[in-house]
């Protein structure tokens, strides 16, 4: 996983609350059993004029030529609610988004971001709206997400501390594969599991007995 430290880029303001993962990547756009090939389907329902088509709707922010190359998304509250589909994060990542600034995130989506190297940065509602308004007015404005410092900055010098889970922050900065990291404790996991099995054997044995039928 690519480590995340500091990112400076233009941003996409999308200030709707409760943007769900069906909206981020509609089911019909999830065509392959893969984490790739999803960027074109990102926000497909809002981005294109026709369902399933590819004719851009000029009114949608992703189609604003001034925002080409944007890597930061600024969004409303409860971003990523709904289905747990991780394709939403894969589509955002493939499109180039590496940080999302919002007043709050849906829990599964938030964990999915961290698992894929995207920063879910939480700022208070008013600040997110102020930041979005600034970016709306100045499409070329460069926004910086400084993860070690936990700060969002804009090019006029304003900066705000954002909130992020400390573990998530550490793992994003390290860019460590979480499975590798956990498997360092494999012996400890196995030993704990054996003890747990002694205490609650019914969580284990009946399943195994049935599997032999």
């Amino acid at each position, binding site marked *: 996983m690519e480590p995340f430290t500091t990112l400076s880029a233009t941003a996409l303001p999308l200030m709707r609350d409760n943007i769900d993962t*069906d909206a981020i990547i509609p089911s*019909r756009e999830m065509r392959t059993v893969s984490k790739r090939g999803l960027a074109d389907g990102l926000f497909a*329902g809002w981005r294109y004029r026709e369902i399933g088509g590819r004719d851009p709707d000029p009114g949608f922010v992703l189609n604003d030529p001034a925002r080409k190359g944007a890597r930061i998304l600024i969004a409303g509250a409860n971003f990523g609610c709904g289905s747990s589909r991780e394709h939403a994060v894969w589509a955002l990542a493939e499109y180039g988004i590496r940080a999302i600034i919002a007043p709050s995130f849906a829990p599964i989506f938030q964990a999915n971001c961290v698992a894929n190297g995207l920063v879910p940065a939480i700022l208070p509602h008013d600040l997110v709206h102020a930041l979005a308004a600034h970016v709306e007015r100045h499409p070329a404005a460069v926004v910086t997400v400084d993860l070690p410092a936990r700060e969002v900055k804009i090019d006029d010098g304003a900066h705000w501390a954002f909130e992020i889970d400390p573990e998530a922050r550490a793992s994003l900065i390290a860019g460590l594969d979480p499975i590798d990291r956990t498997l360092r404790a494999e012996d400890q996991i196995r030993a704990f599991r054996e003890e747990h099995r002694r205490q609650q054997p019914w969580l284990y*044995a009946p399943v195994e007995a049935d599997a032999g039928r």
Partner: protein
Amino acid sequence: MSRTIFDKIWDSHRIASNAGGGDLILIDRILLHERTGGVALKSLAERGRRVLAPDQAFAVMDHIVDTRPGRTDRTLMPTGTDFIRATREGARAAGLRLFDLDDPAQGIVHVMSPELGLVLPGATLVCPDSHTCSQGALGALAWGIGSTEAEHALATSTLRLRRPPTMRVTVDGALAPGVTAKDLALALVGRFGVGSGKGHVVEYAGSAVRALDVESRLTLCNMATESAAFTAIIAPDEAVIDYLKGRRFAPSGEAWDRAVESWRALASDDDAVFDRELAFDAREVAPMVSWGTSPQQVVPIDGAVPEPGVGQGSDENGQRALAYMGLTPGTPLADLPIDAAFIGSCTNSRIGDLRRAAALLDGRKVAAGIKAICVPGSTQVKQQAEAEGLDKIFLSAGFEWRESGCSMCFYAGGESFAPQARVISSTNRNFESRQGPGTRTHLASPETVAASAIAGRIADPRKVA
């Protein structure tokens, strides 16, 4: 020290605590389905990883499988077959128990897993599906994850997590006749909002919750994700123990006795402290129906579409929802003409749901021009319903009678209602285009769906009987 049921399960599964504040938690059950599970298994195999405990992981086909009779691996979703085959091959290669299309235990993962006793009180259970919170109804700590976390759980039997805060929602009073767990779930999200659960483990408690049967508790917990909760849980009681007894994967003999003894102690201590507390009076709940594109945009069935911004989030969200749904403020929900009716989904497709809907449909006909579909939640539910003759009631009323699966709850199988079709639906989400491009979904109980199908308009089930 006093502890909540969540604390007890968490602590008994906590392998280690990290300096950063996260915990390494043992996972007892991993459930997969073909929509997201295939990707997880494929990615895991590509990286040369093995499943640490294959006997604790289970896969089932439910999301994109066809639900029309005579189904095969082919589905209406373009490339859907690839997902089915990838999951089948991945599950076999990894040595997981797979409930394939033709297995009598096949069904929607959140319907078939309690049915088989795969979910047990005190267990930790994960599935890459947001409605995994349903299983908390049996006193398990069960939550939805993404595909990458599923890979982690498969490879390590653990997840790294920050301990979520707790919230108790105490619902006292009794639900009025004709009012169900679905109405309660919708009333709660309507009252408290889609952000109200924000990352919390929600324990449902109180006399109204204790009075619910296990199937109704599954419905109530199912909708917790619609309030952004981490998950939901209800302390197991005799109803849960009775429900589990004799189920295929439930313990038996001496193991059963030991398990039951442990489950009886599995409740929040009387003086346990929750991070948040909410209270709600079940007597206030009427049959509910949603008017907008978020589950919180809901009113009692005799209510009207509210003005934008009134209790439903921002003006802008309200305006957008109104435009999408083709509604204007002040319009009464009852008597709004519909195009289609859907009974199914992990929320409301269990045998009790089908029995209650059938009771209303018996001897009646679906109104002319209404497309009405019933999709049992599992093959077992379907067979039980057929043994009771419910299929004949649905069919003679004019409903389609399908094979089990997620189906048109979210059109992942490629089948959809017509654009702009107004659908009364027993599902959990009324998001834009959820049941097909441009479809307008109104969430309600199976009773309300049945009553509306007969009337051809949104109808109060209490007035049909």
